């Protein structure tokens, strides 16, 4: 995966040369520096620890430790109160796999992640393109786009929950006034509408940061690349497909992988929009995991931890598959 990023870096511009692993030291330069750079680009583990140390410490302390706790919890047996009663072996994992609603939850998760990420990336590309232009009022637009990202997910979800409400929701009000519908739609309670309603919110909150990743990516593209394309006689569409998109590859990669992870783990939206819906019918793996611990008849923290482990493995598999696919396409072209 790191190789992908490096390869992507190499594709950034014609002026970039691929970093050579074991290039010889520069010919010119004082001998002392030549000795320090005897294997230019290579470094000792000690130096690495110095530069990476703080990062490792933070990650180790704040993420690895609780992750280990999660693993321990998944192998433990708990009372409904949260008291640890003993070991459970693999019972928790088996219970999760035997859960009658697991199939629905997995299906929901698949639809949720795929549709939200795909829509987000597509729309964000367009938005980023639009923001790259210079026009009167662009600043205002940029600020406006930041707002869904600036607002907390819980609040945005609560607002949408009100907007979607059958009786006092703005959406039903507007649609009825515009004579698009004659009776209100139960956006959150009607099973056919719940997923689309959630997806809208998911895409809505994901576009801003994705668009900005793309804006950063677009800004990193040197102008003379476009010059060269124009000189070669490329049409705008060809320029976009052959020049812009490939150069956006690192940004696309970062944005899509991170979006997959965040959308997978996105809790507040599904939770808030579903808080009147009983059972697990519209849950994704993350709310399923939470409900197992605190809101379901199982109320089993160990089972929830097992579900959490499954969740991580699932995301890992999805991301690895995605990266493999992307890399494969790169080798093809």
């Amino acid at each position, binding site marked *: *995966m790191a190789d992908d*990023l490096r390869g992507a870096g190499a594709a*950034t511009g014609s002026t970039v040369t691929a*970093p050579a692993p074991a290039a010889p030291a520069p010919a010119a330069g004082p001998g002392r520096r030549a000795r320090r750079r005897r294997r230019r*680009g*290579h470094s*000792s583990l000690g130096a*690495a620890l110095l530069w*990476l140390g703080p*990062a490792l410490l*933070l990650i180790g302390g*704040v993420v*690895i*430790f*609780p*992750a280990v*706790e*999660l693993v321990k919890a998944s192998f433990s047996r708990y009372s409904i109160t949260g008291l640890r009663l003993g070991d459970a072996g693999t019972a928790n994992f088996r219970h999760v796999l035997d859960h009658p609603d697991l199939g629905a939850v997995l299906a929901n998760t698949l639809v949720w992640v795929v549709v939200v990420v795909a829509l987000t990336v597509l729309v964000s590309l*367009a*938005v980023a*393109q639009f923001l790259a*232009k210079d*026009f*009167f009022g662009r*600043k*205002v*637009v940029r*600020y*406006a*786009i*930041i*707002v869904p990202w600036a*607002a*907390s*997910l*819980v*609040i945005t979800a609560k607002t*949408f929950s009100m907007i979607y409400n059958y009786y*006092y*929701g*703005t959406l039903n*009000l507007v649609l009825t006034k515009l004579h698009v519908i004659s009776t209100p739609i139960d956006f959150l309670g009607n099973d056919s509408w719940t997923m689309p309603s959630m997806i809208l919110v998911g895409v809505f909150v994901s576009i801003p*940061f994705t668009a900005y990743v793309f*804006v*950063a990516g677009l*800004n990193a593209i*040197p102008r003379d690349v*476009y010059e060269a*394309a124009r000189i070669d006689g490329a049409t*705008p569409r060809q320029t*976009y497909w052959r020049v*812009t998109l490939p150069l956006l590859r690192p*940004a696309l990669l*970062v944005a899509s992988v*991170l979006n997959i992870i965040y959308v*997978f783990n996105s809790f507040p939206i599904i939770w808030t929009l579903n808080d009147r819906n009983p059972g697990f019918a519209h849950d994704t793996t*993350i709310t399923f995991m939470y409900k197992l611990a605190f809101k379901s008849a199982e109320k089993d923290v160990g089972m929830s931890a097992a579900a*959490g482990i499954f969740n*991580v493995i699932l995301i*890992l598999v999805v991301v690895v598959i995605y990266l493999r696919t992307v890399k494969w396409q790169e080798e093809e072209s």
Partner: protein
Amino acid sequence: MAAIAHPSDRAAVRVPTRRKVGWQRHRRWVLPVAGLFVALAFLWPYLVMLLNSLRPSSDVVQTPATILPRTWQLSTYAQVLGDERFLAWLRTSVLVAVTSTLIVILVSIPAAYFTARFRFPGRIAFLFLVLVTQMFSPTSLVVGLYREFFNLNLVNTYLALILTNAAFNLAFAVWILHGFFSAIPREVEEAAHLDGCGRLRTLLRIMLPLTLPGVVTAIVFTFIAAWNEYVVALTLMLDEGKKPLTVGITSYVTGYEQHWDQLFAASIFAIIPVVILFAFIEKHLVGGLTAGSIK
């Protein structure tokens, strides 16, 4: 030269275009109008929120609904600002978000630079580790976090929350900066070495300015993530005054008493600092690399 249209202009999907050069004459107003629509598309739920903050709580959930308030109530904002607890929540949020962002930047830049530029044993492991840590959702880790901070006697401290937010956002910062550092041509570094710069100075003086869009993106991202973090803050912060805004404002609407007007007013207030931060640094997103500076 201004006469040469930027090819990326033509590839915009949202703007109604005709391929002919003709529409360019109307470009002056077409783009701003399109911009208005785009802005509204992202603002409309928050306009609903704004309108809800300007009406009494009972009007918010009244059936049938109205777009404009039946009764206007402008006092809510003053009421929220005058609430001691709200101000304490706001202070906490600012403290936690700013400090977490600082830590992330200070830690991720060296790590990303080093990983992008140098081969060392465990390099790929590090990048992989960074990615994997992002895959654990805070919701599943919160119990373990509580245990850890409890053992360290750091429950209910700002430090715990700051460290948590920093750690959870490190991956994104490292990733995006890694991409930017990788993209800088070797020649730039070589030139720096020729001029006698050590690794650190190369990083600070030469590389960093070139990756500024990435740094800015990382700052915005981390700040917002820390500002809006909920689950961990809920679990770790016990005192009313130490709760950040995200946790605090849930007090406005309980199962027994609902103050929707105050909730939404407080939420509007919560959005403002982020927009302010963004206003200060967004121009650096615009800057970026320009051709020729490399040479």
